[in-house]
């Protein structure tokens, strides 16, 4: 049957009114649905207002804390940290340094210590179909982290409980994340939702829900100098560690030798390695 322009026009107009109705309906749904409501249980963390208010530019959406920066140190070196960064700065002006011991001299080198810091971070998140969140733990459970994770892995590893092979597990604050080899197991557990799990002497009602996991898209790094510290390298292997430590400490405390008040000094003996540990604090 041949279709006239009128027919085409009619059907297009019908289509349009159908589309417009759908659009209106969706707009209503969007207004009604509380976007901030999360449809799965989320652990509660108590917070309190203690009088701190932020102004304009200070407001950043995220807090950085508990930072740990580690840097391996070579054998035959020593890390010296001064109270005054100016002392470190002065010492770094000359790369070669001579340390006097009784009747001889140690020729050593002085280098700045450069540490990696993250300057920009991009993280995206999405629901992870292989992982679940286990929540509802009562207070006062007399189990260590390891014990709790073991018991959960045992319970949810059994097919008879609706579980399967557990590939990853992680203790979070107040909840546990379990990752399964088979995503159908994870899905099925979420659908069941409630479980009675034996944890020690009691049967505890726990809730299983979908887990949202995060992934780093980008983390930009730069090297920042530890301004209070210097790394003394190429120390000849002529003294034992304790003697070397004492001699270096005495030497670097002397303002006449370019030193100053030493906060800490650690020797990494020849043939060994050391790991310098730093933290960072907001200025």
């Amino acid at each position, binding site marked *: 049957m041949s279709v006239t322009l009128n027919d085409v026009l009619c059907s297009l107009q019908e289509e349009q009114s159908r589309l417009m109705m759908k659009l209106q309906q969706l707009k209503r749904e969007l207004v009604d649905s509380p976007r901030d409501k999360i449809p799965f249980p989320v652990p509660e963390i108590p917070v309190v207002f203690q009088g701190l208010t932020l102004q304009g530019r200070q*407001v950043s959406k995220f807090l950085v804390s508990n930072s740990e920066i580690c840097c391996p140190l070579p054998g035959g070196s020593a890390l010296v940290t001064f109270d005054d960064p100016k002392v470190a700065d002065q010492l770094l002006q000359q790369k070669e340094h001579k340390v006097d011991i009784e009747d001889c001299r140690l020729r050593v080198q002085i280098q700045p210590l450069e540490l990696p810091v993250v300057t920009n971070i991009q993280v995206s998140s999405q629901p992870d179909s292989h992982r679940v969140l286990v929540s509802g733990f009562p207070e006062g459970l007399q189990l260590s982290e390891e014990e709790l994770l073991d018991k959960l892995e045992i319970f949810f590893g059994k097919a008879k409980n609706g579980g399967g092979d557990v590939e990853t597990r992680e203790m979070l604050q107040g909840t546990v994340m379990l990752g399964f080899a088979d995503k159908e197991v994870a899905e099925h557990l979420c659908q069941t939702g409630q479980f009675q799990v034996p944890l020690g002497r009691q049967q505890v009602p726990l809730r299983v829900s979908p887990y949202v996991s995060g992934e780093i898209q980008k983390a930009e790094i730069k090297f920042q100098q530890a301004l209070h510290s210097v790394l003394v390298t190429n120390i000849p292997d002529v003294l034992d560690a304790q003697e070397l430590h004492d001699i270096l400490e005495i030497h670097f405390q002397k303002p006449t030798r370019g030193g100053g008040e030493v906060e800490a000094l650690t020797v990494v003996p020849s043939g060994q390695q050391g790991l310098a540990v730093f933290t960072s604090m907001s200025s």
Partner: protein
Amino acid sequence: MDADLDIKKQACKEHSPEKEVMKGEQKERLIHDIMRENLELDQEIKKLEAELQSDAREFQIKENIPERKLKFISVENPEDAGRFSHSSCSFQVSSQILYELQKGQALITFEKEGVAQNVISMGKHVVQMEKGCVEVTAHPVPPTIGVRFRVHVDISQMKINVTGIPDELPEEQTRDKLELSFCKSRNGGGEVESVDYDKRSGSAVVTFVEAGVVNKILKKRDFPLYMNSKCYRVTVSPFIERRLEKYQVFSAVSKRTVLLTGLEMVWLDEETVEDLISIHFQRRNNGGGEVDVVKCSLDQSYTACFEE
């Protein structure tokens, strides 16, 4: 049926041929317009559907981290030798829990949770101001959804990334040339453990036997690669592994802090009002108890920061 329609068409044409043609053109234009509109509507619908599906579970984070002061802790000698093969940086990132305090609102933190809950359940409170009273309403502070996780970044002391490798020689030969160039100590190189070369992308990962060789090489952005009788400069960059741990969405609830509303018409200064509110809610007769902090917003709004 076809015949019928054709006859009708013929009939229309015979009656007003010009009109029919014009209408025909108009109709075609109209059809094009409607088709375009429908396409736009469809796109809008798809966008809204996607929005409805993407719920608050999805957090996109894009943040600059301001420079912080470095502080020495200690020098360790861990048993795990693997820890010497990279330098690392790890830290926790956690959402700031903020509340926009509007004009006419106040936040009051009690020492005891029970007192806060009682004040909320009492609802309205009549607070004595200097010249009269004001009725405030106590509400719980709405919970905020936040996210927290731990970032780990490891910068290898044994491996480097090499890019911009010319495609002139066969794979095996290029791999050998890379090894030969990177083991030359006069260029800052050192004994090479292995070379992982990807011809397709012109890049490679070079692993050295000794830790620390990479630091010398990475002082410059490029490195000389000798192929045949030419010297190419390939780009070198640190080999970095990044991962995220303990990613967790949480709900920040305030148990001891109460939101008070109804202070819009108060004409005193903020400090005075804070004192008066504090005095009122310290009294057990008023349903209150020991007060930690009061912050009130009258002239301007504030961004209140909640802490754990």
